[in-house]
């Protein structure tokens, strides 16, 4: 059972970057206005940021990290470990973390690799990096977490297109013998792998010529086989079934009550889903911040982005007890109980628009 803990590691800094280009779901004229309003009010996504084709996830993570280094007054030469958590890497190979090691001036004596997780990625990233730092041989790690999901959604698929936004974040983790323990409950269920998936392009289903052809997969939904498929009801069922028990088991294992925590940062996927989970855990609304309305579902970036956007002042000025919980693609999910101690947290950074056409306007109907 993956109920695990880490000692002697703490978060010392956190930054998040989003693209400047904003898309408003009120403009999504593929669905009638009444349905748009229902979607915005129920799922909670009104605006979101889109990277376009010239900005990558790693560009945004790098910008966030450089801002963070300058605010923390640390040099890239101090970094021993770089992990890039993302499902939108720069190249099929090599790992993006290694490319970034060089681009950012991080020493060749550091280790660097990628973790291709989505919604659960920030929680897993904290565990994996924390586990590596806690012995004290590696002192300072750079955890880069983000995704460009808008590149994988079809404009003609209302079950995915209005939901996602893009973001890249950077977290600095450091060895500290006096740090409070961090506790995790991590879970996986591969039986649900198809619920959120891109079917072609890997080695199971090699890319073919017709992989790029838009097809009507069900009434009103057109996408190609490189684009994201999402079974909304299945994911909704999974989240209602698994997330609250995962957190309750974590709390029981550390003998804590739900009220012992200042904030709960949930993966930002769906307001109705998160509100239902919030009620199951009997949490006050003010303990559960949201960024769905302004950034949408930003995949693995959603937890750190929400922290920067919504509780930045508290993170900088106070000691906080937090529960972070990520759940989705895999299916993979996990929660962490973590204390923060006045961390450096600059405001959300915007990545300037590089002037390209946003790909959503390239609509070609091949059916």
């Amino acid at each position, binding site marked *: 059972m993956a109920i695990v803990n880490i000692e002697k590691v703490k978060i010392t800094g956190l930054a998040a970057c989003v693209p400047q280009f904003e898309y408003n779901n009120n403009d999504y004229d593929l669905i009638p206005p009444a*349905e748009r309003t*229902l*979607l915005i009010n*129920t*799922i909670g996504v009104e605006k979101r940021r889109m990277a376009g084709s010239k900005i990558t996830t790693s560009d945004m993570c790098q910008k966030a990290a450089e801002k963070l280094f300058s605010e923390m007054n640390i040099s890239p030469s101090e970094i021993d470990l770089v992990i890039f958590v993302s499902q939108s890497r720069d190249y099929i190979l090599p790992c993006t973390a290694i490319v970034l090691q060089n681009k950012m001036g991080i020493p060749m004596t550091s280790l660097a690799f990628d973790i291709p997780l989505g919604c659960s990625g920030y929680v897993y990233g904290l565990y994996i990096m924390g586990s590596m730092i806690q012995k004290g041989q590696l002192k300072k790690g750079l955890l880069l977490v983000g995704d460009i999901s808008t590149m994988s959604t079809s404009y003609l698929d209302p*079950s995915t297109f209005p939901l996602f936004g893009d973001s890249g974040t950077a977290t600095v983790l450091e060895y500290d013998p006096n740090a409070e323990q961090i506790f995790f409950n991590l879970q996986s269920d591969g039986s649900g792998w198809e619920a959120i998936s891109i079917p072609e392009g890997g080695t199971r289903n090699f890319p073919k010529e017709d992989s790029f052809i838009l097809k009507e997969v069900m009434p009103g939904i057109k996408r190609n086989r490189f684009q994201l498929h999402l*079974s*909304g*009801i*299945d994911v*909704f*069922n999974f989240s*209602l*079934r698994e997330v609250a028990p995962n957190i309750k088991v974590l709390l029981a294992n550390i003998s804590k009550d739900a009220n012992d925590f200042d904030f709960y940062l949930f993966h930002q996927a*769906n307001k*109705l*889903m998160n*509100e*239902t989970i919030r*009620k*199951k855990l009997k949490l006050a609304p003010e303990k559960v911040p949201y960024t769905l309305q302004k950034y949408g579902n930003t995949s693995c970036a959603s937890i750190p982005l929400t922290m920067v956007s919504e509780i930045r002042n508290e993170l900088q000025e106070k000691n906080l007890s937090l529960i972070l919980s990520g759940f989705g693609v895999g299916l993979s999910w996990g929660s962490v109980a973590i204390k923060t101690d006045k961390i450096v947290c600059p405001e959300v950074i915007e990545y300037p628009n590089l002037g390209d056409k946003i790909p959503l306007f390239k609509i070609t109907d091949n059916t």
Partner: protein
Amino acid sequence: MIIEEFIQKIEAEFSDMEQGILHSESVFREVMNWNSINALILIALVDTEYDVILTADDLRASSTINDLFTLVQSRIS
């Protein structure tokens, strides 16, 4: 659990629906302006009120409000 209470809760949740319009034999896809978002709202309501999680298959297998009610009732622990 009685069906009148089940119907009341659904009518209260779907605020744009006229009160008293739902009956046990109402075909919910026709009466409730059915779409994928309304499906999620119904699932969330049933989970919150009865601690029962309706799946996509459950919804496909159901046609009337009474079908849903019977299903939920059979799963209440």
